[in-house]
């Protein structure tokens, strides 16, 4: 009995994952390439990529911006979230070619002149991260959430980050971190921490 070995193993593949695999396959040498140009973290970049190169691979492999993480390859976990033209986008389900001419912000480009963005500061102040793997995507989703809604309720924050999975924090301190950042961005004093910080 002869079977393609992967046929049944992959029979529950979703469309999205198939697309991810396809993207990988087209990274092969010898594949026709195309020119792409975009602005990443304020810098103009251009490159030569296979047409189906996914944005996350371009960022990680070509630009070596490894703060954007691959967690699930199915646009479900959100670890690969970056900001494309002001919107939070899961870069494992966007082609590099689709980002032609776009303004992209990755986690590496969020701090300005060495000053942390208030959301980054909030995650630090309120223990919004543990292992840190989901953190870049979570922070960038929170940044766009606060741009769209300057004073979100707890429920609105939770709904706003529903597409970003965290396995460490139980989200409690992530919500607190975003509340902290929202207050800072509004020019208000953040609510006190649940603990007294000593140093």
């Amino acid at each position, binding site marked *: 009995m002869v079977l393609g070995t*992967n046929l049944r193993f992959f029979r529950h593949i979703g469309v999205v994952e198939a697309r991810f695999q396809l993207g990988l396959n087209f990274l092969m040498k010898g594949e026709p390439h195309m020119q792409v140009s975009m602005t990443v973290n304020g810098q103009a970049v251009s490159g030569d990529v296979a047409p189906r190169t996914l944005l996350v691979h371009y960022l990680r492999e070509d630009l070596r911006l490894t703060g954007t993480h691959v967690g699930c390859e199915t646009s479900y976990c959100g670890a690969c979230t970056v900001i494309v033209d002001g919107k939070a986008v899961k870069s494992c389900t966007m082609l590099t070619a689709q980002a032609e001419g776009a303004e992209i912000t990755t986690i590496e480009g969020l701090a300005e002149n060495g000053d942390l963005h208030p959301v980054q500061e909030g995650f630090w102040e309120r223990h919004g991260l543990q*292992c*840190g793997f*989901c953190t870049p995507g979570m922070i960038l989703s929170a940044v766009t959430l606060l741009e769209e809604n300057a004073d979100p309720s707890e429920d609105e924050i939770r709904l706003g980050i529903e597409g970003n999975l*965290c*396995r460490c924090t139980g989200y409690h301190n992530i919500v607190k971190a975003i509340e902290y950042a929202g207050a800072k961005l509004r020019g208000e004093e953040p609510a006190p921490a649940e603990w007294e910080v000593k140093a």
Partner: protein
Amino acid sequence: MSTTSALGGVVRRREDPALIQGKGLYVDDLNLHGMLHVAFVRSPFAHAKITSIDTAAAQAMPGVRAVYTADDVRHLGLLPAQAAAIGRPLLADGEVNHMGEAVVMVLAETRAQAQDAVDAVDADYDPLPVVIDLKEALANTNLVHEGVESNTLITWTAPFGVEEDGLNELRAKIDEYKARDDVVTVSLEMVNQRLIPVAIEPRSVVAEWSAGYQQMTVHSSSQTIGAVASAVAGMLGIPYNQVRGIAPEVGGGFGAKLALYADELLIPWAARELDAPVKYTETRREAASNTIQGRGWLGTSTITGTRDGQVLSYEIDAICDMGAYCQDLTVAIPFLGVFVGSGQYGFDTRMQLDCVVTNKQTTDAYRGAGRPEAIYYLERIMDAYSREIGMDPAQVRMKNYIPSESFPGAMSPVGFAMDTGDYAMNLQTMLDSPEYSAMKAARDQPRSDGKLVGLGMSTYVEACGFGPSALVDLGFSWSGYGQPSAFNGSGLVRVNPDGTANVIIGTGPSGQGHQTTWAQIVSNELGIEMDKIRVTHGDTKDAPITIGTFGSRSAAVDGSATFEASRKVREKAARIAADLLEASEADIQFADGGAHVAGSPDKRVEWAAIAEVAYQPHRMPDGEEGGLEAHAIFSPGNATWPFGSVACLVTVDPETGDVSIEQWMSVDDCGNVINPMIVDGQIHGGIAQGVGQALFEEAIYDDEGNLLTAGLIDYPIVTAVDVPMFNLSRTTTPTDVNPMGVKGIGEAGTIGAAQTLVNAVVDALAPLGVKHVDMPMRPRRVWQAIQDAKASA
């Protein structure tokens, strides 16, 4: 302002600046020159003979450098494990025993080329009968492995250490209880389902071999990098001191990165064979089907007690799913459940846990590891019993606790000495809290929205902080990996000539904040400013002999070792300072970056000045050796036994079966606390994983052994909208088994959570006649329970 840290203080995490700016290094971020990439051909069958493997087409694919099968790696032996009743071949050897088992390893210049070549491998299989159902596995209807008489690998019984005669006497005694006419006996068959750990970072391994220096470097996203280095050394025949294991940032572990994996040996082996760096990063699908899974018990709990709440006996008979092979601690995981089988209670307890192999992925340590399962069965049946006799479940628990006077060293009915505990005080703290009163009031408030409301509570005890050196005799060591070290802690503290300090530890974080906590321990002991202390971990080149991070052991065991190393450094520094200040050594105190004479803060010398003398031996007091560093190994006399009380309020929509958590609280006791912020964070995350088990998560294998939940769409973990804010408080009962009095908190949240939520849902549905709902309590299952109850009413 004091810049040194006291234990018990919140200090912002020192690991965060890199992580919040995307500058942390995870294994998959490594990109070494000339690096080859690995992909595996994996079995599409749960159980089959491999009749042929044709790799010729794959070998000829672009960029492919090598294609390996069992024939190439058989000589290396089976994957070493601590309890290897059934060991795993590094690549399937003639037979596959679970879906996704690695059959062929392909190495190519790019990951895409490797994956493409995987599709070109032609492997033929002859399917065999599969063993999926646990009762059929126990009945040996079909056997998973040839040449083995039974699917049962081991049967754990409790009380621990009691032979069959003694167990029969206990059975007879329990039968007498049941025959009394003033008692009720309540019994439930319940599932504690298989789970997939789901660290958000998939596992990744990179190996480099230096032929010139005969040096192997293995980077792995592992909780136990010392074990990885030991195993690589042993299996590849390289001396341990020529293997360097590095675990940089580890993106979540939860036990799944404790086990040693075949790829952690195959990748270094291939790197040496091909003299090139090699990387393997698992896909999410591989993470689901090939990283270890957890739980997987099917059991019956039975409780017998009087109508006024005095429990006479508790019994559990369960079948525990080991999967196809034994990995790290596989059969030892249910044994960890035996440790806490009788919980916080003093009543007679009998346990029988049959550990069976099945044609599924191996189970091993997943957050809690045996203890959530054991506490689940116990606390669910305590709840059912309370309901049966119409008593407040909190009062029933109060009535049956081991009294605080029995501590320290109370003996549990299942046969273990427990360190410290005051269970009634802890539960009373929860019952007296305004939050608990508010939940009770909300539960009894009439509602206009038609939702059913339930209040659930439970209490737990945990055994963690392993562990005593003598556990080696029960198989708890890395001796299976060629390193016969017990589960010791280790720490090294060095004060440098400029007065800064390096702390090098044998345990590493996967999110727990070791760099911060350990700096606090050392700062508190030496009075060196936090900013001048650098904590490093996860590199076997520098570290003292390392065991790793698991079983909520880091602070209690390795933290204690670092504490003791700090104390040694302090004692020596005190002698130098006494000499410099012309004072008595006994009067030297350390704070705010230096030493001073007690009562005379002006008579003071900075750490840098002390260190300068230490590295200029001619200036040292007579008889002192140069240098200012110390190393300590710590082996505790017992595990630590944290405990706590948990409650939650839920609403259930009777139309849809949807469960919503309205409020959650817990009162946890993990002894002394080093950094309350980090401790709370551990509890939050632990609760969320317990909630995930109760509501959503289940690794589902179909009748043919296909894993149906291999992606995050089919295997939903908790999102931000599924949980409320958690209301935490604590009581403090320090342990007496380590110098800091700390217990462990990494798993407590999970251990206390799932049964609390099921108890709450059953409380909501009890008026309809529902007695139990199995996990995961997805809407359809809850809705069905409501329909069934209505139909039989």
